[in-house]
């Protein structure tokens, strides 16, 4: 016979269990809140680090193209322009190519080929960005300078040798300026845009392929039964049905492109001058930070932190839109 009344044991155990449950739930919740803390912390840390630059230059920081450590003048325009221009070029190339890949993998390719090709494209997403950067620097940029750039400047900009404008440059506004360059190397905003495009193609195409597969078969088959071609089904049925998620996938790629550091730093040329030409070197927010932060002091360091804050806010907004768009399709499916 035990000294403790038998009725107390289950009660005691229930109390223990309840306490452990509370502790366990609290521990789990604390860990989940770390995710929240990481995002808020990154925003506040960069804002705090950039307070001196924001305080010194105010709104002028956003529109000034100056970046001069000797006179302590800093403005965000050149890196912001570089970030936006490279990302925009990347989207311009990556969106149609990704759509083509997703279309091929969901409608065109023979069934046995789909999985291996899809895994191969996804392999591209797994390659570290520094490898893209090295490949861009040592392989693609020289190739670009030798084969693509002369053609572009010759037919769309100015002749690189005597500076005479091409037919396109004299007849179409703006284009001549975009492709004029007397700088002989491969590193440029356009090169960086192309390397970024290759990087984000697997992200966008895998989202597109996934959402294309969510289209109900009866919708597609009804269209086929009415005599539609594969292209008409894709363009008029599949794409409208998945529109919001497709836009979400594109924004996801844009978020990646905006924040990418290594792939861009190698092939952008890192010039802090504003140039209208896409074939001239430039710099992006991430490449400026990567190049200058370790040697920067005082106001320059603060200006770089301020740039990081701008980058963080812009990518946060882009990714927020991306996730909201992606969720719209999911919620329609009742997931």
């Amino acid at each position, binding site marked *: 016979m035990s000294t403790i009344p038998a009725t107390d044991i289950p009660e005691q155990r229930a109390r223990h*269990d309840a306490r*452990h*449950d509370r*502790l*366990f*739930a609290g*521990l*789990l*919740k604390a*860990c*989940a809140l770390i*995710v*929240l803390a*990481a*995002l808020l912390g*990154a925003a506040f840390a*960069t804002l705090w*680090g950039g307070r001196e630059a924001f305080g010194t230059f105010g709104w002028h920081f956003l529109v000034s193209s100056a970046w001069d450590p000797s006179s302590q003048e800093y403005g965000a325009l050149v890196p912001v322009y570089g970030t936006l221009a490279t990302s925009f070029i990347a989207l311009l190339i990556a969106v149609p*190519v*990704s*759509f*083509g*890949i997703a*279309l*091929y993998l969901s409608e065109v390719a023979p069934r046995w080929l789909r999985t291996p*090709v899809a*895994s191969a*494209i996804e*392999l591209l997403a*797994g*390659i*570290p960005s*520094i*490898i*893209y*950067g*090295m*490949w861009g*620097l*040592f392989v693609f940029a020289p190739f670009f300078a030798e084969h693509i750039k002369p053609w572009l400047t010759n037919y769309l900009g100015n002749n690189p040798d005597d500076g005479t404008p091409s037919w396109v440059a004299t007849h179409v506004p703006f284009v001549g300026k975009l492709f004029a360059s007397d700088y002989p190397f491969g590193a440029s905003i356009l090169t960086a845009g192309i390397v970024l495009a*290759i990087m984000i*193609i697997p992200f966008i195409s895998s989202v597109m392929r996934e959402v294309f597969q969510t289209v109900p078969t009866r919708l597609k088959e009804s269209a086929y039964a009415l005599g539609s*071609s594969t*292209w008409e089904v894709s*363009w008029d049925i599949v794409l409208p049905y998945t529109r919001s998620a497709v836009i979400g996938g594109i924004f996801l790629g844009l*978020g*990646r492109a*905006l924040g990418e*550091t*290594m792939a861009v730093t190698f092939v952008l040329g890192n010039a802090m001058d504003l140039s209208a030409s896409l074939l001239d070197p430039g710099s992006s927010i991430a490449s400026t*930070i*990567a190049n200058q*932060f370790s040697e920067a002091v005082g106001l320059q360091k603060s200006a770089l932190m301020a740039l*990081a804050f701008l*980058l*963080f806010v812009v*990518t*946060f907004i882009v*990714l*927020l839109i991306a996730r909201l768009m992606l969720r719209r399709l999911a919620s329609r499916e009742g997931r």
Partner: protein
Amino acid sequence: MDLLYFRRRLTNALALVLSTLATLVGLAFLAWILWETLRQGLAALDLKLFTKITAYGDQGGLANAMVGSLIINFVGIAIATPIGVLAGTWLAEYANRTRLGETIRFLNDILLSAPSIVMGLFVYTIIVLPSTALTHGNTTFSGFAGGVALALIALPVIVRTTDEMLRLVPPTLREAALSLGVPQWKLTSQILLRAARSGIVTGVLLALARISGETAPLLFTAFGNNFMTFNPLDKMSSLPQVIYQYANDPGETMHALAWAGAFVVTLFVLLLSLASRLLFARKVSHD
């Protein structure tokens, strides 16, 4: 009518050809990048890569960078795995469909593609600067800080896979355990996490693959060190950081070393993603 029919067929044929072409372009770039890494990397592969340190410059190897990478990655995964698994468990088991849970799940997805260089600056602010101030400059940049930066990048990957894998566990398992009077913490830690184990391991491997190639967050946290060090409180070099440094060097021999490093990193990352894929495939076939 015939003309319309012909035009529709032409559009269709053109679209299908273009989509095939797009896929070929994607595959061609993949092959081009992998081929160059393989060719230039194998050409520069040498035993001294693994035995000599970077202090010898073009006569040296990458031994200290490899050790540094291993230590920093280990610290990153060791921090991110427990936090990520517990946070993912909370999302799946405790906060599924609550407002805070949905918000954190949503923000976790954003953290997943947040710019890694900003994470580096964040860790610089919260660890490098305070440790410099507290130790009067004796400890500034450190392998530990690099590990924390990588942990922030690995965390959302682990949270997401844990969350998804736990939600795949059939609810009957939970009901069966609860009906036997098993308390929830025991149910979660000893039944559900065990059932989802291989999926969670996949997530950890994916996170390791993701952080192994990260360079940007290490530049201002682990910084780099030309000498061999095993002390996580010391400045520490890593393979990606040495690749970045050597690729920007004007010397041809340095470029060869950078390619060798790139080859090692790529091989490691691709093997990891292959392993995680195999592991996950095995799980699916068993269920």
